[in-house]
């Protein structure tokens, strides 16, 4: 008896409900395709439009001032969210965590205590970006947060920080957040930028006409901060947070001089990088992006990934596409533009249609044209120098850079050997916050020309309760044929592995 492959649950499964995922979902649903959208958050919007619907409906004074502070770029998502919700044919599954994606279109999901697999004929990874992990002395102290986390608390928790607030790092989000805080009546004690005026000037040669609007926006943020009397420095180096139970002060070097400031909340941000946990565990090819000191998936312009798995584990052709910031950092406009391209490519793969239109591809190029300027103006700063020996790199297992360096020197000279020996990357984060630093330490210690490949990713890439594993639904009947190594002595005749090798 042959067991057939399970039937697909939808034409397309989209992972992530931010600008890219929503745009693609709407495009595909309007073309009559069945779409399942899996997203970790309770409402559509992704990181940028987080909780937007609810905040738009909040008519209280506090609600209105929050909306005003978050600005027009936040409200700009309202139309897309409305269109997304109006598509009754989209099977939208919020509060759902994805813990495995396979090259054949199988997606492992978790919702509360329930978990299982769904299958799409095509899969679109629109799971977004993450903030660049920045290990520095004291970064694990309570009171040290990332800019993204503070924005989450503003948008969804309606929480405002108090006390002495220091922002440190680089990138548009840092300046945007400083402005938003100021507008909410929270005046930061200092905005310390790692970028220098020289970076900004050098970056000017990358400016394209389409990049002028973001530039004007950025200059506006800077101007408003200056008017408000928010202190600001550039060229910040050697950041450290100090405190017994939580952060009490920060120190840093500017212009060769060490400074210390009292601090209750240190907000750090060193730019955003594509989240690679899903593509890595799916066995998709990643490439090292030197200037951005991060990996990103290797894709065709329409987002198609490339499998690195042995032929018996890959699907032919690959049905995994990557879009939005998960593919290439570009922000919401670029994500929406590419979400459309990816959707058109998926329609072509399902129908053998025409594929992405020239106009849709041009829109991606236009939206991304400001990136070379931003990359040059805000190079990685806090994470630029490798951490010193006493700084924790793997916070799940509390391993310092010194611990890792010692093991690398004693012969653990590839990522998997290093992980196996030290447990770096084996904790709940599964390497999300330590992997890039471990790889750079390995490259540095071995004097390798290139950054080594990532840790091997295996499912689950996010924690699943044991009870949910026990009751997984949607299993592939071809995979569940009982195969176990029997240890019970007298039962040799019942062994299920007793087929002799040919």
């Amino acid at each position, binding site marked *: 008896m042959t067991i057939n492959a399970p039937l697909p649950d939808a034409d397309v499964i989209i992972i992530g409900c931010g600008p890219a995922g929503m745009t693609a979902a709407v495009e595909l649903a309007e073309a009559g395709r069945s779409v399942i959208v899996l997203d970790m958050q309770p409402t559509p919007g992704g990181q940028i439009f987080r909780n937007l619907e609810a905040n738009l409906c909040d008519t209280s004074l506090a609600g209105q001032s929050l909306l005003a502070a978050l600005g027009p770029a936040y409200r700009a998502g309202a139309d897309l969210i409305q269109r997304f919700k109006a598509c009754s044919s989209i099977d939208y599954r919020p509060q759902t965590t994805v813990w495995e994606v396979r090259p054949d279109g199988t997606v492992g999901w978790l919702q509360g205590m329930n978990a299982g697999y769904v299958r799409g004929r095509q899969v679109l990874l629109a799971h977004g970006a993450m903030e660049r992990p920045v290990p520095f002395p004291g970064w694990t102290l309570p009171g040290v947060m990332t800019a993204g986390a503070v924005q989450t608390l503003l948008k969804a928790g309606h929480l405002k920080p108090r006390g002495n607030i220091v922002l440190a790092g680089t990138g548009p989000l840092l300046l945007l957040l400083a402005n938003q805080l100021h507008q909410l009546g929270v005046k930061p004690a200092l905005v310390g930028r790692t970028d220098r005026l020289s970076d900004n000037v050098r970056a000017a040669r990358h400016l394209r006409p389409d990049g002028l609007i973001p530039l004007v926006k950025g200059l506006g943020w800077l101007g408003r901060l200056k008017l408000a009397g928010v202190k600001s420095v550039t060229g910040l180096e050697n950041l450290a947070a100090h405190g017994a139970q939580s952060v009490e002060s920060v120190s840093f070097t500017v212009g060769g001089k060490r400074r210390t400031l009292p601090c209750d909340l240190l907000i750090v941000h060193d730019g955003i990088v594509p989240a690679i946990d899903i593509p890595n565990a799916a066995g998709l090819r990643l490439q090292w992006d030197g200037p951005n000191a991060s990996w990103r998936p290797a894709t065709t312009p329409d987002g198609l990934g490339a499998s690195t798995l042995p032929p018996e584990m890959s699907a032919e052709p690959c049905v995994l596409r990557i879009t939005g910031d998960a593919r290439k950092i570009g922000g919401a406009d670029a994500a929406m533009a590419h979400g459309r391209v990816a959707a058109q490519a998926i329609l072509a793969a399902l129908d053998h249609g025409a594929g992405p239109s020239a106009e849709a591809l041009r829109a991606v190029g236009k939206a991304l044209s400001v990136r070379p300027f931003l990359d040059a103006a805000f190079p990685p700063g806090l994470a630029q120098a490798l951490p010193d020996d006493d700084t924790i790199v793997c916070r799940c297992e509390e391993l310092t850079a010194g611990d890792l360096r010692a093991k690398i020197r004693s012969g653990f000279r590839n990522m998997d050997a290093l992980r196996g020996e030290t447990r770096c990357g084996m904790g709940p984060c599964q390497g999300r916050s330590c992997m890039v630093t471990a790889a750079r330490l390995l490259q540095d210690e071995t004097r390798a020309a290139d950054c080594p490949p990532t840790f091997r990713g295996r499912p689950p890439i996010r924690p699943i309760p044991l009870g949910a594993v*026990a009751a997984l639904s949607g299993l592939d009947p071809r995979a569940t044929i009982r*195969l176990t190594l029997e240890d019970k002595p007298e039962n040799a005749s019942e062994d299920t592995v007793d087929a002799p090798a040919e």
Partner: protein
Amino acid sequence: MPRQNETALIIGAGLQGCSIALFLARAGWNVTLLDKNVAGRHASSVNAGGLRTLMRDWREYPLSELAMEHWRHLDRLIGAKAAESCEVRLGVGQIAVALDEAEMSWTLGRVQEMERRGLGAEELLSATEVRKMLPGLTDQALGGLVSRGDGHANPAASTRAFRQAAMAAGAKIVENCRVLGLERLPGGGWSITASSGQYEAGVLVNCAGAWGAEVAAMAGQTLPLKVVAPSMIVTARTQPFLEPVVIGIDRPLSFKQSAVGSLVIGGGILGKPCADHDTSFTVMDRMPEGAAATLEAFPALAHVPVLRTWTGLEGATPDGIPVIGPGDGTPDLWHVFGFCGHGFQLSPAVGDVVGRSLVSGTVDPLLAPFSGRRFNAGDAA
């Protein structure tokens, strides 16, 4: 004894190969290990590290007891510092739990058989006793079987320690060296063509693990071996509550709490082997059975998060015990592979007994059940 017999080539520098190399080198032999990857890359380093005589197959029992002697006195074998690095924890015990009548009746049978054979290491536990030893165990448990002297060790560290001990005794290890062909020399001994050159020795030992049958085939010998990928589930750290290792009888249950508090769940659930690519994949579709068996025994663990899974490549024979002994008509070619997922504990005894047999020129009677010739008669496919 002719001089050429005092040189050995061992294919596969895993734990078994290194253990044999250690004993041979100590006996004054000239030993070279060849490994297609790096020493200990596969099953040797990524198994669960169980040190268990509990529920051992009777045919393995005497070898397993000898191995336990070596583990107990590992400092004598490889030195105090190296022994300490192996994190040997004996005496925490391994317990088989009987969760239904059939398992309980098997347990009673096992104890009777144990007495009949004059072996005394496994004790019957009543329902009350087993629940007292295993907090959180389901009320459904009817009893169990304990081997109090059992425990576990760190497999990667142990593999490293045996490798270093073998090298200290004079064995040479050539890594990233793939065997391409074997040739028996006229008058005895073997010549190996490998990716890194030509090697010759009086005795050849095939310790190629999951690739053991492939190496045997290069010498024209057919041995039945299935390449499997046993896999494990690891949870987040929990409060320490469990010292002994718990195993199932008819259920795919096997788990322990690691020193850092995480639960390591095995039970023989198999992933997907890709031996040609030196790798294997965990298959989550097969994990529910192991997770369900764990929860049936310990219902309170339902909310413990699973963080990761792992797997490695292993060779399994049709009858569940390894091949250890000379090949058919080749006293100078030994096969030592197919440990079916329980070779870690046996390894010091395998080195001891195989080494002793090669040095003396007579196969030790302890190895009688493991001859590959058992597959020649009738039932082999």
